């Protein structure tokens, strides 16, 4: 890219006067525009790879569309929020969920890739749980969808285990001195979901209204669940 730019400037150096300035400005503008419209290098490589794999009959492009659609539209943190709300609403379900997550999650229809063995860990006034994968990016896909960039990034993966309280402070969660922090590093094929504390004052809410309060961040353990500010209708 640099050589192209230098070459371009070099070749216009001979042009003189106002025309040059104008042409240069115009060309530079077009250049910038072209650059934006140009597909990125990985985009080109993926396009070429996909067309090769399709031509060889190794993948079905419609299956690829379906996988993308599944994770963009169907599977995401709303699933996990439904589980959390059910646990808050139904103490018997919560007991099953904490003793054997696999069975309790299957009751609600959740399982499958990267969620075959999910453990649910409960936040209480005395214990705060935080989930990480220091080695790669393990995450409970069926319940939360695909992980956000920060979860997969070096800063989070490196610090969550050595400085969980600092990480939590960065996300705006300050824990009392007597709270125990339990960090869960997903090093094997177990996946973790945090059951956040039910916010005080939510006793009158329906299961659906409770689910609407639960965020992805709370289920990873970097946030708490809060009631909406006064004046907001539920």
């Amino acid at each position, binding site marked *: 890219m640099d050589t192209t730019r230098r070459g371009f400037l070099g070749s216009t150096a001979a042009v003189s006067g106002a025309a040059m300035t104008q042409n240069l400005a115009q060309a530079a503008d077009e250049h910038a525009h072209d650059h934006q419209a140009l597909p*990125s290098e990985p*985009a080109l490589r993926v396009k070429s790879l996909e067309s090769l794999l399709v031509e060889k009959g190794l993948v*079905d492009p419609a299956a690829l569309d379906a996988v993308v659609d599944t994770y963009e539209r169907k599977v995401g943190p709303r699933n996990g929020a439904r589980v959390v709300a059910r646990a808050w609403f139904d103490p018997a379900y919560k007991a099953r969920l904490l003793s054997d997550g696999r069975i309790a999650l299957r009751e609600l229809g959740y399982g499958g890739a990267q969620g075959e063995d999910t453990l649910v860990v409960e936040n209480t006034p005395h214990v705060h749980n935080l989930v990480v994968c220091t080695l790669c990016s393990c995450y409970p896909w069926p319940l939360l969808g695909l992980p956000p*960039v*920060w979860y997969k990034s070096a800063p989070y993966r490196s610090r969550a*285990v*050595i400085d969980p309280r600092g990480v939590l402070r960065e996300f705006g969660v300050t824990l009392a001195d007597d709270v125990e922090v339990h960090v869960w590093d997903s090093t*094997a094929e177990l996946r973790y979901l945090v059951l956040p504390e039910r916010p005080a004052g939510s006793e009158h809410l329906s299961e659906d209204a409770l689910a609407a309060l639960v965020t992805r961040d709370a289920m990873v353990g970097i946030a708490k669940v809060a009631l909406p500010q006064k004046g907001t209708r539920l």
Partner: protein
Amino acid sequence: MNGVHDMGGEQGMGPIQYEKDEPVFHASWEGRVYAINRTLGAWRKWNLDASRHGVELLPPADYFRMSYYERWLTRLIDISIKTGLVTREEVESGKPAPGSSKTTPPITAANVEAAATIRASARRSEAVAPRFAVGQLVRARNMNPVGHTRLPRYVRARSGTIERDHGVFLFPDTNAHFLGEKPQHVYSVRFSARELWGNEARPQDSVHIDLFDDYLEPT
């Protein structure tokens, strides 16, 4: 292997960059890479552990320079070539080799959903005896294998307590290299933050890690 992917406890990686209302994929090619990975795996030329190891084999500078899905793309191409699904020439030209025959993909739009939910778990039904019991004090081995391992460096030679026996799973260290599944017990091991990081850590804080029988020894 002692690679840069094993980053628990590293320092100086900078602030955590949180993106509000982050999209699932930041560009459509990321979604394609993800989907190709998922569906191409159905040819069973490799397994999840081999695939993870593919990312670990990236040179450190590339690992940090690349975005997450660029790493996936690179290892996908590498492993597809290594296992003979495609050739380097085909990847470079984007065209099948002259005279190669066309096959039928195992995953199609019709069965993709079913395939996603029945995807093979790493749990195994073999009756393997556990080497350790819940409540037992254990030490993570000090080992430095050059191949794939899921024993992070920050717990090696540290002592912890078995809190839960998760049952029997295939062993990534052998499975990643196609050396067999070597099924064995996986335990949730609790390490106190002080054992891992010293006296500046809070005495009540802990890290829980899932470790295989072969990673542990009695204290």
